[in-house]
């Protein structure tokens, strides 16, 4: 903080040596520093207040079930019997499916936009990609119900015919379920990955690329051995930002995941996510225990996001360190 503020304090003097840095300016600088410190503090405070409130609201559940809340698979609001595992499973698996689809697609299209496409095409396409990121998730959810789900339902019999030896692709073709949830999430996070990866790839220094070409490398070789390694930490960061978004996405997932708290090997089967169960049941949760269990789910989701972000930091730190 103070290191960043120091050059700002001297800069007016350096600029042409005009002595504008009077006592008033100093006071202004100080005010500025205090203000932005305050802003940063508010963010920190909000995060802590959130954790505190979630913990306080869910105490009843932790007291009743302890950590077994995380491993129990029942969710019965009538007899106040609660467990978080099916929701944890649904959230993590649907997000992983999304990542599995969106990362190759996103990085691939970013390479095209940054390296192959003419600048004008690239800018136009990037603009469209950013527009995609601005589509409200309820709209994507509706599209999911009316377009994606019927399409998935039509495809599922073929998937189980050809890939049915894997337990992943067995079961009744409802269309609704983990697979659809993963697909819609992939669509939602794709713009993040594409646009960040493109920006990062555009920062690869030209001399490095030209050096590769001078050595007789093809375009593919250049991308593989210069651009991608150079942009690696940025791309990893983009993937984790996208994963964070996927974990917390509520509306679109709720509309296509089938909302059934179960754990099954097949991607065709309906499942449930943490954000969905909160959105679905909070308004009508009249019982204290039910409410507390839903808030406990919120705390678990908060924890998962922290773990993912921590892992992202660690990974970026490691890849940067290797360079």
């Amino acid at each position, binding site marked *: 903080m103070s290191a960043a503020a120091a050059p700002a304090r001297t800069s007016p003097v350096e600029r042409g040596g005009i002595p504008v840095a009077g006592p008033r300016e100093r006071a202004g600088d100080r005010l500025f520093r205090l203000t932005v410190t305050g802003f940063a503090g508010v963010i920190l405070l909000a995060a802590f207040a959130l954790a505190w409130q979630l913990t306080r609201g869910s105490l009843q559940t932790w007291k009743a079930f302890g950590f077994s809340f995380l491993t129990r698979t029942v969710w*019965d*609001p009538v007899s106040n019997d609660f467990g978080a595992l099916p929701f944890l499973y649904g959230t993590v698996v649907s997000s992983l499916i999304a990542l599995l689809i969106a990362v190759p697609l996103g990085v691939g299209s970013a390479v095209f936009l940054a390296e192959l496409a003419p600048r004008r095409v690239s800018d136009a396409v990037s603009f469209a990609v950013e527009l995609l990121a601005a589509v409200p998730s309820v709209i994507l959810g509706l599209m999911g119900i009316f377009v994606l789900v019927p399409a998935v339902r039509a495809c599922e019999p073929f998937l189980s015919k050809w890939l049915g030896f894997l337990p992943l692709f067995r079961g*009744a073709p409802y269309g609704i379920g983990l697979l659809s949830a993963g697909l819609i999430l992939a669509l939602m996070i794709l713009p993040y990955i594409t646009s960040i990866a493109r920006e990062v790839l555009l920062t690869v220094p030209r001399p490095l690329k030209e050096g590769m070409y001078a050595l007789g490398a093809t375009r593919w070789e250049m991308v593989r051995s210069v651009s991608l390694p150079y942009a690696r930490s940025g791309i990893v960061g983009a993937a984790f930002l996208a994963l964070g978004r996927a974990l917390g996405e509520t509306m679109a997932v709720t509309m296509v995941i*089938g909302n059934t708290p179960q754990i099954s090997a097949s991607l065709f089967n*309906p499942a449930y996510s943490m954000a969905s169960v909160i959105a679905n*049941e*909070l308004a*009508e*949760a*009249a019982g204290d225990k039910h409410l507390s269990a839903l808030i406990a789910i919120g705390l678990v989701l908060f924890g998962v996001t922290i773990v993912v972000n921590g892992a992202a930091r660690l990974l970026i730190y490691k890849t940067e360190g290797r360079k």
Partner: protein
Amino acid sequence: MKRNLLAVLAAATLAAPAFAQVATLTGAGATFPFPVYSKWFDEYHKVKPDLQINYQSIGSGGGIRQLTEKTVDFGASDGPMTDEQIQKAGGAVLHLPTVLGADVPAFNVEGVSELKLDGPTLAGIFLGTIAKWNDPALVKLNPGAKLPDAAITVVHRSDGSGTTYCFTDYLSKVSKEWATKVGKGTSVNWPVGLGGKGNEGVMGLVKQNPNSIGYVELIYAMQNGVPYAAVKNKAGKFLKASVEGVTAAAAGVKMPKDYRVSITDASGPKAYPISTFTWLLVYPKNPDAKGEQIKAFLRWMLKDGQRMAPALGYAPLPAVVKAKVAKTVETIQ
């Protein structure tokens, strides 16, 4: 400049009491009666321009919580408050029935447009014990229909809802197995099926999935033009849900003093069995002039408001119940 700003501020503060002359009542709760409630509050504001009623349809559970915390003047719920909840809210909360609604089993089976169901069969389908459309129980009830040899896809609500409360309340009454295994509530642990969000979510799933069945509010099925089943009532008659059938169900039940009564599986030959009241929750004693304001609105609701209900797909209160509620309204302070 600064002085101007001050002047504007001062003017604003002075002007504020002028706005305050329009009194406001705030309420929160059930989403199911929201269309008719918002119509009522709108129309009532036209009749009485000096009172504005502000209603937030945040769900029955939320309505009960906000009423308990006294952040609203009245609540609304599709299920009656439990004794425990009433204790928490200070010991006395009046339940005033306003309108009635019904759930219908909407289905999507190719070549079948009429379906007859009785309570145990419906419970069997939602328990998963009746898993195929050509199950003997279904064939026996529908001798003429061409029921396919296909698995039944069950669809239920995923969000907590008064619709679910009414439906599971009915199943608990007609099936012992349902009562012990699942029970009744705004959200329950469904043994089988897909969860759709809201009436539109359930409707969408039923429409898209061949051989499916799900429950939705009557008005929703009527608007969407999907076939829905006739359900056998306590008198042994098969009835398709209608506004009249729902009102008949309310007339056929013995009304307790606090109105906290379930009218599912009501007796009477014309009573549709999966029906429910929806209630406004009001404190018997209210601060300031609020008691009088609430009272005046409720009088108007019983007289003029009731007539607006059928057009919006809600069943009005039967005359017996209306007369009773009118007496209770007069006790509000």
